[in-house]
């Protein structure tokens, strides 16, 4: 339980606000990752991995991997229509003609989420699963192609205070740990954003040997197979949505055929350029 800083009432673990006074208590996923048992368990896994590396003689390679894991960021893969809509959504020329009726979106979303609570997200986050957005941890800007051909790299400042990490993608994690509804997830497999390198080392130390080069690190961290069932990544959980101001860069391959596709990418690149975000050609 968290104590409300304003009125001292207890705030439920899945609540973001104090139900007594409405004060913001902090993203519940971050509060969950900050629990002492989580931190101690992760620290222990991390220490074990580091200690083992000394025995294996892979300590230098692991240290290099560890340092690189601090440089990782979150990417979200999307397709061309999503990307176009996302980058133009705040441009007056485009938004002027949008007819989104907020109430309608909200109702659709609420209805959808009400039912979605019985799903994987609910097992991990309970009542606040509808607030969680998912991304993958990446070192080189590449993401999971099974979610779309274009990888949006999110600015660290836009997520650092509200992002946590899970060792695996949620589906695989639940399956691997044979978790049933209502069961607590074992400690040591989630991390705060600032400790993502510890989670990466804990998970992946065994794949780092004395001969592992830095060039191999991105692929060790994230394996995109084009199939969601076999993709491997560390999943980033972001509390709350984000808009296109959160973009730092977009990585993808420019299409060479299809008038719409070519024009849409040109439009996207212009918009990124205007907001001083980079397009990274694959």
């Amino acid at each position: 339980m968290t104590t409300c800083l304003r009125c001292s009432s207890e705030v439920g673990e899945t609540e973001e606000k104090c139900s007594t006074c409405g004060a913001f208590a902090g993203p519940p996923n971050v509060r969950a990752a900050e629990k002492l048992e989580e931190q101690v368990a992760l620290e222990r896994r991390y220490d074990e991995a580091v200690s083992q590396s000394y025995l294996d003689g892979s300590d230098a390679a692991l240290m290099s991997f560890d340092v690189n894991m601090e440089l990782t960021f979150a990417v979200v893969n999307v397709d061309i229509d999503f990307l176009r809509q996302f980058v133009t959504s705040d441009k007056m020329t485009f938004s002027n003609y949008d007819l989104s009726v907020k109430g309608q979106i909200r109702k659709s979303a609420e209805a959808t989420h009400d039912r979605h609570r019985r799903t994987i997200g609910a097992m991990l986050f309970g009542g606040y699963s509808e607030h969680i957005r998912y991304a993958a941890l990446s070192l080189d800007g590449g993401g999971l192609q099974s979610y779309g051909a274009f990888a949006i790299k999110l600015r660290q400042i836009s997520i650092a205070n509200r992002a946590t990490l899970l060792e695996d993608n949620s589906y695989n994690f639940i399956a691997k740990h044979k978790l049933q509804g209502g069961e607590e997830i074992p400690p040591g497999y989630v991390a705060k954003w600032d400790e993502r390198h510890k989670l990466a080392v804990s998970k992946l130390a065994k794949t780092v040997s004395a001969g592992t080069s830095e060039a191999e690190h991105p692929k060790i961290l994230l394996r995109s197979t084009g199939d969601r069932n076999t993709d491997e990544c560390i999943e980033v959980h972001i509390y709350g949505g984000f808009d296109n101001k959160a973009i730092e860069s977009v990585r993808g391959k420019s299409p060479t055929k299809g008038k719409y596709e070519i024009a849409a990418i040109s439009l996207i690149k212009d918009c990124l350029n205007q907001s001083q975000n980079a397009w990274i050609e694959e």
Partner: protein
Amino acid sequence: MIQETLILGQIGKAIHRVDDRYFVIDASNQREPVECRPGDVSLMLDSGAEVSSILSSTVDFESVRDSLEFSTRAYRSLAMTLGGLDKSLTAQTRSLCVEAAEELMQENDVGAFVKARLFARPLPTSTDVEGGIACAKSVEAPLVQALFTDLTHSQETIHLMLDSWEEMAPEFFNSEEEQAAGEKLFIEFGVFAKLASALSSNPFNPTAVNSIIVEYGTKLSLLSVLPRAPQILNNLRAILFRRLLIPRKKKPTLKATDTDKLQAPIDVTSTDISGAILNLITDFDKRRLWKPSKQHEVEERIKNQIAAVGKLVLKGELRRANEFLLGLLEFHLKHSEKKHVAMSLCALATLARDAYSFEFAKELLVYAFALNEQDPFIWCTQAEVLRASGEIESALTVYEEAISLFPNDEIAIGGYATTLSDLGRFDEALEIYEALVDRTPDNRIARDGYAETLKRVGDFDSANKVYRETIHMFPDDVVAYTGLAETLKAMGDLDSACKTHKEVTARFPESAEAHNAYAEVLKDMGDLDSSLRIYHEALARFPRSIFARNGYADTLKNLGKLKSAAKVYRETMLLFPGNRVALRGYASLMVIMDQFEEVERLLSYLPDKIVSRDDWIGFHILTMSRMKRGQIDDAIARLEYGWQAAKWGDVRAYFGTALGVARIKKKEYREAIRVLSQDVSSLDHFQKQKRFAFIAHSKAELGEVKDAASTLAEVSVTTNRRIASLKQALLDRYNLNPINAQSTKSRNAEQLQKEIEQAEFYLALAA
């Protein structure tokens, strides 16, 4: 069976629910629907795309796909058309967009969709229709060209139509949301687009407008979702015709200068809050109206509120802390005695002091004094805040005032003695402590302070005795145990110090400080691996212990694992953003790693006038950084200043040590000896050892080899790697020990000189 479908044509996706599972259909491929992963739905809804919902059990997968594909083409076409109009895009992109739009609009329904949208809103200023028309001409896109040309002619009537709608609609809809939904239907059915075209005709043809009203007023598909459509359309027509007869006034636009007239948001500055708090306190008696029934609840709440303010203070969020404080005091004053409120303020001031927020601490004490409570604790807290902030003479004055008001208060007397000790007035301090310990032999704080002062003056035997007596009297006094071990360390009896620290750690396993002190002594003894192990254990037990984290990083630094040390420091700074110890440790590491700009950036918080003990330490590191980058005269001036001006004897001592090294670096050996020889007797064992080594170096350079050899013989430390290796390098470099002549041959003078310089710098930096 499909139970519900959401179509998001703007992003080319449809989500449908089958047996309470969600699947996503992608317009860009023909693949079977894929089950949604967590977050898929949220992300799609975050895109800002429009959503149309089909709630029907009769819809099949194929019809969902057909709807999605049309919707996707329509939105793509709209986006491409808008791209052709957007003047912020490059000419090439605009041309590509127009070409794509032309291709997509070959389908009649897609063209109608785009027109319905474009004629439902006036063009924003970011568009350039003329440019769009030219672009359409150049790429030979006749449909787009015609659309843009019509659009140019219809702008006036689009304004007219929307103004009329705004005037009429509130009468028919209960809320803004309902009105927006109605407007959306009119747009999607093309009502506004057709009306805009009809109204633009020249000469104006009312029959064309009437036909549109009749056409849509009888359209069953519209009536099924908006039964009042005929009345709405009739009213809209009436208003349109009236407005056509009365020329429309242009909407006033807001000039840039008008924004100045807008009321600025109220900024509640901390000064306002301070005023509010003082008012609250001074009006206290008038405001006290009722007493609570459940005292324990009140106490619990106050305790929690104090903790909340404290957390904010530690985080450095003083503005919010002040706001919370107002709430805390409002409640506290209503439900508690003034004395208790004053004690809470003092507790918070102590927290603020520990977080280096001295000004905030002083402000809290202003509130405490404003309560007019005569409690020595308020005076003592103020004195301690002043002492910590470097205003030691003022602290002494406050203690004197406290003692005159409360002559028997042991805390005030003990604090007074400690402050005298800080000022180097050791004899007076010891006299007061002796009297206090005689008068109150069971005052463990006084006893520990007395022993600490004895240690400071170098009377280690007496300090040792007092600590042992205290331990005998109070076997649970961890401070006394640690003090004893530290005294043994200062005496150079490292084995006993280590043994004692080990015992203390075993006896007080929950004391992070005990673990830390044990690891520190192991580090001093040169057993860095064991030190690292103890820190590891401490971190497992106390993962948030700032002492353990900083000590761990420092040990890594000593082991030469600079990158790892940097990582731990950075983590610690993230975990404890206001912690200056971690910041300084990191800055010191950056000096070693020659990251001088980073050092300047990290220590840019230092005030112009250095007062507090912590700021002096930061000032020392910054000075060493400048020395290392070659600014030797500047460094000497700063070290001289620290050596003279710092109020604390141990702080002055390490400025003196570093100044000696700076003089050696400048080859001013005689001056170096003069500085390094001062106050040596009061230094602890390690400081003494360093000084002897530096003095020996200076003497050797002056050719006083015999004297240098005898001074170097005083350096008895062999466990501290740096001191030991410096001693060896000096012996070799200056042939001070003929027995070891062999090693001289293996390293030349240049190498040795470099080693000596590096070791001396490191030892001077480590203070």
